């Protein structure tokens, strides 16, 4: 579990509710919980969409939906899982409505960044290759990979967020990991990315 995972939610959840004057304590706590999980939601959304702007749009939409439906959140259940589920649901809806399902390694150019200069710089960064390889995965595999491998959730937690059996998550994850590795090896990204990661 990352430092922000341990500290972010913990400290905000335990922050005295009187700390921000003039606001409804329930709303304050809910808002604080949301803010604490925002970095992880942004990372998840960035991986799903492949775009910084789209990712923040997605997280903003998720925040708005969560606030509108905060009465549906059950105390005692995991707030982060609930938010991941909202992000994932909205994203799936967007993917379906845009009909931009990407299969067979097809890459949507607009996901690579609209700014040409940024794209050129990004292309020179080896870790950018890894992000693009993730972007080429089918949506269901990408979701499993981001929740388990990047965010460190268990298979069971991921299955609950996605709403499928654990075995399905295991299968999607395995396909994602194998495909990713093959892409990185074939593109030389594994070696360069490792060098880049070591250099950081």
């Amino acid at each position, binding site marked *: 579990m990352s430092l922000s995972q341990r500290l972010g939610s913990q*400290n*905000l959840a335990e922050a005295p509710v009187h700390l*921000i004057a003039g606001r409804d304590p329930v709303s304050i706590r809910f808002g604080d919980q949301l803010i604490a999980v*925002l970095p992880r939601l942004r990372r998840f959304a960035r991986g799903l969409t492949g775009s910084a702007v789209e990712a*923040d749009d997605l997280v*903003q939409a998720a*925040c708005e939906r969560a606030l509108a439906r905060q009465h549906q959140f059950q105390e005692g259940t995991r707030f982060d899982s609930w938010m991941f589920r909202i992000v994932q649901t909205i994203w799936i809806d967007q993917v379906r409505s845009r009909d931009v399902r990407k299969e067979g390694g097809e890459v949507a150019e607009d996901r690579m960044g609209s700014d040409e200069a940024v794209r050129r710089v990004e292309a020179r960064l080896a*870790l950018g290759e890894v992000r693009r390889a993730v972007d080429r995965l089918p949506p269901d595999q990408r979701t499993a990979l981001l929740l388990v*491998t*990047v965010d460190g959730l268990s298979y069971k937690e991921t299955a609950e967020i996605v709403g499928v059996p654990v075995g399905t998550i295991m299968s999607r994850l395995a396909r994602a990991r194998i495909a990713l590795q093959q892409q990185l090896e074939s593109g030389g990204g594994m070696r360069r990315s490792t060098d880049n990661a070591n250099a950081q």
Partner: protein
Amino acid sequence: MQMRSDDRLIAYLDGEVDVSERREIEAWLDSDPAARDKLAALAQSAALVRSAFDEVMHEPLPDRLIAAARGERVSAEPSAKIVPLRRGPGTGKAPAARSWWLGLPLAASLFGLLLGGSVAYLSVAKLLPGGIGGKQPAVEMAAADNLWLDNAVGYFKLAASAGDGALVDVPATGDAREAWQKISQSLPQEVRWPDLNLKPWGLNFRGARLVVADGRPAAQLMYTTDNKAIGPLTLIIGSSKEPDTPPTLARRQDVNLLYWRHQGRAYALVGQTDVGYLWGIANDVAWQLDAI
């Protein structure tokens, strides 16, 4: 269910196998070099994926997302502005752009003294709580609040942009507590030095300098860390005759602030770290100083 070999290795890496299966897989790995190579490659690619998305976690949160999380519209809150050295008769006059001085660490000390001297003569109204998107206070009070918060941000940016070369009145060479005692003696009230090089923060005290907060002398403590998700940070501790105010979050440009007054002292914790860290660090400061 009999899993495929790749599935088994991935589940093993993810810690998703039971004890008996783990032993079975480890026996397999002991006897099969190809499986060991496969496991190493899978572990490497997983680490790469995590690295590829790690930078998002270190980015400052956009204002619009913080506002959305709080159920607020993105406010037209004024960004941090340089405090004019003299106030002309027309208070609506646009303040000077501030970006020009950020790269001038050499002038920082002199600038801070001039800035502080001018602010000391301004009437500082009561600080109203409200935080991001909170109620807009009256114009004059808002101006006073902005002075205090803008100064805190300005001092932070001066320190952050100067990095290790930040000018300090008392460097934290040798015994940091001794450095703090020296600067504390310059203040009207004795204050203690919070040690943030503890627990998860690992913030190193880099020195302190005298500044002005709430129109009174204050100490700006500078902390740095190799963890860019947390530091650098500055903590301003000063004295105040204003009533106590609860810790309140504010944001100026890309900088987050948590500020409060308690029993005659004013505090401002300032940094580009996310608000979760800021709350946690403020809790430690408050606990050590009994400040909340």
